[in-house]
């Protein structure tokens, strides 16, 4: 049993963690402006699909990534328009976004590629595996840290950048203020609407890249509903990490590890239905330890009056 824990498990954890980490970071941006975004799943799915479309029609991986980010950004603006502008209930909108994402990609899969269920093209190139020059030659660590898709490195960089954004930049400071006490933020003249749109758009871009990693990084194909609950796992990772980029990094690694183990266990003649449950069981277990929704402060005053 012990031989499931080896260096290739770590390496596969790092690969699995990427979509969860990117989406969870995106979710934290929304949480920081006081919006609980359950639509991450839909965002990821749209991103995954757009990446395949971009790759198929342009043949360029860069353009594919760009398209994934851009299309998901547009999709997230729809979410933003409904929650921020029309003040619709964010949970309801999030659920609708998930169904819309699923329906839209299924429909377009048929309309554009004329296939049902999955699209695969053997000539299509996936994201390259970067061999990082110096890193690659370090014994033991080298094979673990090197040889991943560029998005893997992007996701870790995103965690660090987001940390700098929240805790070092003025805009990030204001973003956090909006989520902590929106009334107070308005009273000092902060443009809360603009800050909320900003956070939601960044979330869209991150989720788009998360989707691209799914469809171009881990495999090179699109299947219906291929996000497979990762948006929700990301949501839990975000809550578990208390919306702090490094907290999210840690919790995402935990979920990534579970993902990797569950795949590894399939090689041990355990039923796949059972092994695939692992990340979700952990998700439910994690819920027991969550006091709030990771939306910043529980000290924040909930009411304000005259």
């Amino acid at each position, binding site marked *: 049993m012990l031989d499931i824990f080896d260096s290739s498990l770590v390496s596969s954890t790092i690969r699995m963690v990427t979509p969860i980490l990117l989406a969870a970071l995106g979710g934290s941006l929304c949480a920081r402006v006081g919006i609980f975004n359950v639509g991450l799943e839909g965002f990821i799915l749209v991103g995954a699909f757009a990446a395949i479309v971009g790759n198929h029609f342009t043949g360029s991986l860069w353009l594919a990534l760009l398209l994934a980010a851009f299309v998901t950004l547009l999709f997230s603006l729809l979410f933003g328009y409904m929650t921020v502008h029309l003040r619709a209930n964010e949970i309801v909108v999030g659920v609708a976004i998930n169904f819309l994402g699923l329906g839209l990609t299924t429909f377009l899969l048929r309309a554009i590629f004329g296939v049902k269920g999955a699209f695969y093209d053997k000539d299509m190139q996936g994201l390259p595996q970067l061999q990082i020059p110096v890193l690659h030659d370090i014994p033991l660590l080298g094979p673990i840290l090197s040889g991943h898709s560029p998005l893997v490195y992007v996701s870790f960089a995103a965690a660090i950048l987001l940390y700098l954004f929240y805790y070092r*930049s*003025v805009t990030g400071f204001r973003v956090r203020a909006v989520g902590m006490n929106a009334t107070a933020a308005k009273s000092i003249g902060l443009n809360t609407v603009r800050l909320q749109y900003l956070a939601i758009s960044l979330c869209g871009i991150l989720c788009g890249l998360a989707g691209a990693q799914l469809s171009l990084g881990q495999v090179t194909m699109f299947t219906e509903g291929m996000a497979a609950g990762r948006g929700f796992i990301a949501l839990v990772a975000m809550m578990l990490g208390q919306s702090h980029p490094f907290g999210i990094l840690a919790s995402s690694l935990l979920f990534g590890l579970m993902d990797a183990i569950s795949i590894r266990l399939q090689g041990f003649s355990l039923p796949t239905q059972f092994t695939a449950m692992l990340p979700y069981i952990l998700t439910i277990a994690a819920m027991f330890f969550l006091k709030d929704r990771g939306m910043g402060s529980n*000290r*924040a005053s909930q009411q304000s*009056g005259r």
Partner: protein
Amino acid sequence: MSVRLEMKNMTKRYGQFLANEGVSIAVGAGEVHAIVGENGAGKTTLMRMLYGMEEPTSGEILLDGKPVSFRGPDDAIRHGVGMVHQHFMLFPDFTVAENIVIGYEPKRGGFFDRAKAMADATALAERYRIPVSPTAVLGECSIGEQQRVEILKVLYQGAEIIILDEPTAVLTPMEVSELLATIRTLAEAGKSILLITHKLQEVMEVADRITVLRGGKVTGAVAAKDTSAEELARLMVGRDLEQLSERTEQRGEPLLVVHQVTMQEKKKKPVLDQVSFAVHHGEIVGIAGVSGNGQSELLQAISGLAAVQSGTIRLKDTDVTNRTVALIRETGLAHIPEDRYFWGAAKEETVAENALMGYHRLPAFSRGIIIQRKWFHHLVAAWIERFAIKTSSAHEKAGNLSGGNLQKLIVAREMGRETPLLLAAEPTRGVDIGAMETIHQALLEKRNKGDGILLVSSELSEILALSDRILVMFEGRIVGELSRAEATEEKISMLMAGGRGDGSTQATA
């Protein structure tokens, strides 16, 4: 003294209702201008128009002689008008310095320059002699310190005109005198201060000039040196205040018995430490203490809002320790909570619905699962009459009531239950002197009828005026008990600070 701010003929209409009608005031540089008036007189409305939060229906605002109109608070801030809200507009997870500079953050190389923010905050605090610790996390600061942060924030934004809406309502006596000193310092530095308060002795202490509002109109504008608290009261209420009715000798059987109650989070210092006392029928027991010494927790324990770890609480000979709120209320308890917005009311709902809360299960007002609203409306109408609650109708949103009127509604609701025991926490917070008199009278009548009242108040004068017995709390314990006859402000203050009644100071280990 040059006139810095003039508001001319300000009128604000909500539907058919005139909250302000032709109000004019003028404030000079370096002047402390108090605005007093009954609940719902329109004080807050006037200030909200000045701060750009509310658009005047008509009227003119002049700053240094030039007409201005503000599209929003940020516009007002840019013109040097700042407001300290009664409910603080602060961020609990940020530090004091961050709260002060937010919106106008110092930057270096595109990044937030926290070191400079810290230095600026410290310099500002020193300049105006307002003590705060810039590195502290705001959520852990006392209410008084949070208020000082609010004032510094407004100063940092460059305000020349500072509005303070009922700033002393939430402060301890000590903090009040510090605030009044700060107000004087600011005035001497040339700032114009607009101060709203219901406490006339504070007005007499700091104000240069006073404007009295009643029913949305100015009924008097006087210089402080030409008037007295009594005259102001008359201008405000339009009549002289009455004496409280006699107290009859009443004390009966024990009603509420709290025995050795301890509330403690794991491994932390207990917030309630072996608290024991009783409230008898026909008795008002006052609890004095600097806020944060366990009074809130005690009320929550008795009313079932928080669990205790050991000890017993008996109400009318029933053990109600750690029982549900509904059961305890049914046993015979009503509760005027200390924070009217947080525990006391649903701001988005109507006045009638707020009044109904807690009555909805009573047989008189429900048939099966259907609430009988018709009967209830008569009752609500009677309350509105008795406590002079100003509302356009029972269908008004509760959040639109002025602060004091909402408080009166909650007091009426809880007194209306006619339960043997009433927990009254800050029952007169934010109400005007006329309403305070009505509420005090009602509490006393309840006592004379043979009911028991547990009164918690940060106003020593209120405790002294009403209580038959006074308990003083300090760090979760009851450190002293005084009878009505022996209680004086000095003795209570001494106990509140943790000293023993006999003058020796207690170790606070």
